[in-house]
């Protein structure tokens, strides 16, 4: 859950019609500030390498009747280096208003832009420009910046230092640092290298609302908020879905040691409905679904066994039950948050897997069910 103050939390306990605005940045300097935006759609999805993408529409009326439609590389709204700092405005009437930052996003694409013109004393002037912008998070820049030459970590002392060297992004350290286990060659995909390095600390790389790189632990933490039903609640709708896709009951690891001998480790579910086989050795009703893992950062069989034992509960339980839930708009929830959902008969604990924000007061999320 993002940083906030007691006032903001109080305001968000009620219903809000979301308002957004943005500052336009170029080279980390503000070019335009407090730009009102409409048609906002921002999607966070933990299943992608670039987790956040979205689109906004700017309706710009220039003081001097100029067009803001981007035509050249280097124009303000051109998708070459311009970044959008998007804010959600949380407020109560005129007495309290605060900008909650949602992130810093490089413009990816300008799918459509047009000028509305009007005649003024015989001259055609631009009455307004309507510019649609689509954007992604800063990992887009990391992904584009592919390794031009193969390389290895400069030093094995610190995962954070290496992440910073690879991305050039500023860093907010969220979990303790650790050494890199082995000199692994980076081939081409820089973002994949960033994900692999973060996995050494059992974490996923992500970005904070102020655009710094941070790590989100792969294991779920404690609940950060409880969502309640009813008159004072924020839950609008809770669905239910189940799939066996992406659910495994056996994890096998294949790798090699520093001495170049083979490592093989496996871990499987031995009890419950997801067991791989019955007690007498016969095939269980669900059968065996194996997923293969490999990581160059695992260097011995003890590490490999720990790795598969750690991953097994994740692949066998997470994703098995996914709950789509609609809640009232809240700019503070982020991917990986653990939430408690109050139901009529029980409380569900779930981890946020995707969030879809728009100008509507309703905010659909998907939760991976951890319990309940």
């Amino acid at each position, binding site marked *: 859950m993002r*940083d906030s*103050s007691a006032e903001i939390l109080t305001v968000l306990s009620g219903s809000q019609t979301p308002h957004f605005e943005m*500052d336009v940045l170029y080279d*980390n*300097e*503000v070019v335009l*500030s407090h730009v009102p935006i409409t048609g906002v759609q921002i999607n966070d999805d933990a299943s992608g390498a670039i987790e956040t993408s979205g689109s906004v529409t700017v309706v710009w009326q220039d003081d001097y009747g100029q067009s803001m439609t981007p035509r050249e590389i280097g124009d303000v709204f051109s998708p070459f280096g311009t970044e959008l*700092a998007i804010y959600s405005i949380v407020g109560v009437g005129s007495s309290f*208003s*605060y*900008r909650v*930052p949602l992130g810093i996003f490089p413009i990816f694409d300008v799918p459509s832009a047009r000028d509305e013109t009007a005649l003024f004393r015989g001259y055609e002037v631009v009455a307004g420009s309507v510019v649609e912008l689509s954007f992604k998070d800063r990992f887009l820049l990391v992904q584009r910046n592919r390794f031009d*030459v193969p390389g290895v970590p*400069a030093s094995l002392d610190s995962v*954070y230092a290496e992440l*910073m*060297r690879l991305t050039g992004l*500023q*860093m*907010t*350290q969220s979990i303790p640092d650790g050494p890199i286990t082995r000199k692994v060659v980076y081939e081409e995909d820089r973002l994949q290298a960033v994900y692999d390095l973060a996995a050494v600390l059992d974490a996923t790389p992500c970005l*904070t609302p*102020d655009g*710094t790189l941070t790590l989100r632990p792969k294991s779920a933490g404690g609940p950060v908020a409880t969502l309640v039903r009813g008159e004072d609640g924020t839950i609008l709708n809770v669905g239910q879905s189940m799939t066996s896709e992406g659910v495994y009951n056996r994890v*096998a690891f*294949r*790798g*090699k040691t520093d*001495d*170049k*001998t*083979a*490592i*093989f480790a*496996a871990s499987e579910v031995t009890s419950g409905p997801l067991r791989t086989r019955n007690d007498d050795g016969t095939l269980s009703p669900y059968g065996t679904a194996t997923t293969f893992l490999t990581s160059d950062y695992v260097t011995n069989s003890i590490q490999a066994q720990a790795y598969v034992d750690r991953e097994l509960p994740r692949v066998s339980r997470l994703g098995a039950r996914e709950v789509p839930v609609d809640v009232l708009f809240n700019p503070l929830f982020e991917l990986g948050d653990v939430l408690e959902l109050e139901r009529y008969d029980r409380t569900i604990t779930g981890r946020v897997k995707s969030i879809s924000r728009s100008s509507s007061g309703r905010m659909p999320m998907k939760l991976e069910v951890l319990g309940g």
Partner: protein
Amino acid sequence: MDNPQILALKKKLAQASKVTTLVGQFVGVENGEALVDAGGGRFPAALLGQLPEVASDVHVWFVNGQPFIMGPTKLLPTTGTVTVVSGLTVTVSTVVGTFTLPFLSWYGPQVGDVVKIAWGDMPIVLGVPSTKLPDPVAPSAPPSSDSMRRVDTFTAIDSGSYNQRWWQDEIWASDNNTGAAFYGTKITDTLKGRTVDKFEVYISAIQIFGSAPNFITHTSARKPSGNVSVANTNAVPVSNGWVTLPKSMGQAIVDNGGGLGVNHGGYNKFRSINEDRQSFALRITTH
């Protein structure tokens, strides 16, 4: 459920070659085929190159489901220097360690001989060359592209003025107010261990009046319940835009965390980060 574009993409992906790399142990030859243990199973695989030694570790690649033994995983040097001669074996010192090996029957080994070694299913020392050509020169390491110099702009994540309590978000330097901006932990997380060459603050002022504001460093990552700590006080006259402050202040923040504030002086009022996201942004040049 998937849309047609994704289905088409999946089809294309299914046509791409799939390579899985494993490490296994060479078992031997059975019915004219090389057998290998890899990934927990035993299976025949196509062999590239000569037969490896039995029980040696080999790279096994699956290309579209077809297994290939690509060769030994260990470096096997083909030259070495004889260090010990004992009966029918010699000990050879090489770039990756020493090996004790037999030699070809017609070769009479001497300590100090530089010899050629053949590996495969029967490792053996072949003998000495007639003469030694000059050593080839290894290519020099590719140039490193990492630059040591960094210029980072850190924007504040919170701001406020303290007078008995944090009563508003603007940053005021006045007789009764301590103003401060908060940055989380990103400054020290990003720059720890580096030396500050230049330290600047972005001033976005509502009012500049009277004495110069007393800039201070504090040690809070986020707004504390009470006032912030005060250290490194420096009165610096300001105007809108980037203002250079003593670099010792920047070094203190880089080393100890925390952020920048103003402790009296004035009456100067600076915008909150709500009004201007650049207000009290820090630009730190380090090496």
